[in-house]
């Protein structure tokens, strides 16, 4: 595909990577693409910190006697694992890296609405990240990522205030990014890019941003109250004053349940892109997918009480929250069925991104269905705060979101870096992730049903078999996650050059060179087509600005 094909007459402008090479040109950049890279580097560091903690957790649980670490150390490990993974890796993962990079490209804009705010968001994130690292170095804290009152304010031993401050600042970084996305989506769409021509990834990021905007301030205030209560010695959750610890839970979960949708919605967006592209078939039920994203975002705000079924909330409200938890699952079901239906009458090639996407659909479905079991009131009485819950959310967050994140990373890697990654290695890694993942977390469902509570550094000896299995799986998983780091890094220097549109995809981001120039597009594209105009009969496709192409030869990438 030549430069003329993609509407770029004359010399190809220099890519955003080649503009300038100084450190300052990176650290003070206002280019959304460079900021995306900055975020990428930061969260990768945190992923491995969190993963290291996970490895230590699994090491400790090899032995029922739990003699490897002191209980205090173990408690700090899982707290740190949870805090780092949730706020410093998973929440920014897809939005702040892929979202930042792709949102302007996909809507045909030159940048986000507020480039300085975008950089500011990264500075805040880095600042909060430094707090988090400081927090780890001074020994962490031992409240769990949920900071339950009154334990966290009056009884915990660790550095609760430092942790709260780190998460608080991090929250404002999230808000800044989300604000930028929302305003950009409203104001900066290219001519012809109507709402129902937006790629699903943009819809997903938009829905996520709305949730971030409305939920994150609640977390900020809640944690501020915890920090103040701990610092001051009295506060509004203290039962001694007549305060209500359950009020804290209401406020925390009012944020944190929507937050789990912050973690899954972008992944759903990524997977929608991957599935249609590699199935070479338009997504089944595009509008249904849009509505499903928005309704998950909205209804997701009405279910928070399902984390409190056994905490002593009123029976009436427990019943209400259970009902809402079932209802919020309906749009998720729509999505699963639509992805599956997209595979019908299609032309599938199993490149690494597609393998990750298929893995996502499977693991998300398992995680979601076990979520339904937890939402069933009678079952939750037994399963609340056991490993069943741990398995449920790792299935969705690790099997689901992290897989989608890796899939998206591979898919857009040629666009981001201009280089192809080694396809065979990537497929091995994808398959290894799937296998290792199931090894790690399937046994935990059984552990949970057998009654092993979470946050236990020691457990009954008859549960050892399952724990050993799980730990063994975790070591496979560690390899599977370390692999991409190696070969993606390798491809930066030795990878084959990628063309502007290696996968033959329809989005606007593929209508510019790889890597894109600083201004994204030589001239603003005009959108005339729906997204995902693939033809399964011959694999040909029509891009969103209305150019028809034959199926690309994927070389080694075809089956």
């Amino acid at each position, binding site marked *: 595909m030549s430069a003329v094909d993609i509407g770029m007459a004359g010399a190809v402008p220099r890519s955003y990577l080649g503009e300038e090479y100084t450190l300052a040109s990176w650290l003070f950049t206002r280019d959304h693409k460079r900021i995306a890279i900055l975020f990428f580097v930061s969260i990768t560091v945190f992923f491995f910190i969190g993963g290291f903690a996970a490895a230590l957790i699994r090491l400790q649980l090899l032995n029922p006697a739990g003699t490897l670490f002191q209980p205090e150390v173990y408690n700090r490990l899982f707290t740190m694992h949870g805090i780092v993974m949730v706020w410093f890796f998973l929440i920014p993962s897809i939005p702040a890296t892929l979202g930042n990079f792709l949102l302007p490209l996909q809507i045909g804009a*030159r940048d986000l609405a507020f*480039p300085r705010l975008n950089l500011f968001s990264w500075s805040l994130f880095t600042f909060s990240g430094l707090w988090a690292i400081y927090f780890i170095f001074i020994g962490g804290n031992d409240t769990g990522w949920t900071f339950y009152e009154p334990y966290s304010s009056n009884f915990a031993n660790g550095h609760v205030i430092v942790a709260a401050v780190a998460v608080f600042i991090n929250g404002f970084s999230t808000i800044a990014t989300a604000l930028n996305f929302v*305003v950009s989506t409203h104001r*900066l769409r290219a001519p012809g890019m109507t709402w129902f021509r937006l790629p699903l990834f943009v819809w997903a990021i938009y829905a996520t941003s709305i949730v971030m905007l409305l939920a994150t301030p609640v977390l900020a205030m809640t944690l501020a*109250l915890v920090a103040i209560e701990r610092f001051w010695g*009295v506060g*509004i959750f203290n039962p001694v*004053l007549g305060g209500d610890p359950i009020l804290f839970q209401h406020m925390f979960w009012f944020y944190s349940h929507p937050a789990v949708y912050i973690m899954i919605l972008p992944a759903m967006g990524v997977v929608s892109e991957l599935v249609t592209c590699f199935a070479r078939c338009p997504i089944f039920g595009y509008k249904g997918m849009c509505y499903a994203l928005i309704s998950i975002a909205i209804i997701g705000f009405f279910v928070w009480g399902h984390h409190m079924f056994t905490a002593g909330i009123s029976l009436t409200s427990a019943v209400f929250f259970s009902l809402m938890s079932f209802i919020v699952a309906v749009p998720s079901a729509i999505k699963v069925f639509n992805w599956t239906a997209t595979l019908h009458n299609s032309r599938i090639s199993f490149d690494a991104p597609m393998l990750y996407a298929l893995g996502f659909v499977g693991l998300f479905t398992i995680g979601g269905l076990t979520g339904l079991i937890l939402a069933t009131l009678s079952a939750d009485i037994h399963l609340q705060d056991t490993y069943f819950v741990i398995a449920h959310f790792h299935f969705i967050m690790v099997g689901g979101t992290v897989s989608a994140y890796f899939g998206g990373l591979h898919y857009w890697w040629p666009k981001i870096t201009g280089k192809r990654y080694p396809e065979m290695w990537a497929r091995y890694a994808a398959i290894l992730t799937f296998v290792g993942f199931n090894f790690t977390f399937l046994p935990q469902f059984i552990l949970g049903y057998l009654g092993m509570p979470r946050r236990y550094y020691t457990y009954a000896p008859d549960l050892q078999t399952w724990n050993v299995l799980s730990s063994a799986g975790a070591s496979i998983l560690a390899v599977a996650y370390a692999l991409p780091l190696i070969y993606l890094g390798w491809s930066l220097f030795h990878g084959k050059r990628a063309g502007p549109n290696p996968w033959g995809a329809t989005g606007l981001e593929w209508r510019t060179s790889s890597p894109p120039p600083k201004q994204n597009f030589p001239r603003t594209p005009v959108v005339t087509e729906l997204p995902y105009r693939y033809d399964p009969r011959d694999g040909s496709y029509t891009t969103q600005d209305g150019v028809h192409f034959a199926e690309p030869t994927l070389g080694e990438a075809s089956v």
Partner: protein
Amino acid sequence: MFSGRLQEQYTDSTQQSETAQLGMWVFIATEVMFFGVLIFSYMIYRVAYPEQFRLAGHDSFILLGSINQALLITSSLTMVLAVRAAKADQQRALVLLLGVTAALGLAFLGVKGFEYAKDAAAHSVPVVDYIFKPGEHRPTEIFWCFYFVATGLHAIHLSVGIALVLILLVRASQGAFSPGYDAPLEVIGLYWSFVDCVWFFLFACIYPLGRAGP
């Protein structure tokens, strides 16, 4: 957001200014949630302990609270007039009005500081120096915790606002704004007026309680 020239992703300065304002409105929505959840926790306890909150509220200083509200209302007026002055290209009036706005904000902080001192003198600071008045029990401390957290956070917001207005003041005195370019004034004006609105609700939470006898 505040640079003078047109940024590359916009087609014209109207789009840029409108977009900046929209951004501020979105931010205000998040601020509503931020303060809203605090007021929510307050409401829960107020309903649970009506009598205690009445007693505690009685010890707040409604005169100071009202003076402060009047200061803020006036500052909102001067702020919006400043934006108007910029649109009318009245540079001297613009600088003057911004100056008055910042001064009113500082006056608010001064009164607030004085009020804190009086609260302390009345032994209303939980843990540090707290004495239960007749009939009062532990839940009154919740009221005072709320009082200090809420007014403290509001004061922080106001301080940020004052700093922003002072920056505008400096730039205005250098002649940075013109009828064609006043986006920063508009945006910070929104923020300023919103901080004013927060105070209306804090006032309703704190000062009217327990004045009228049982």
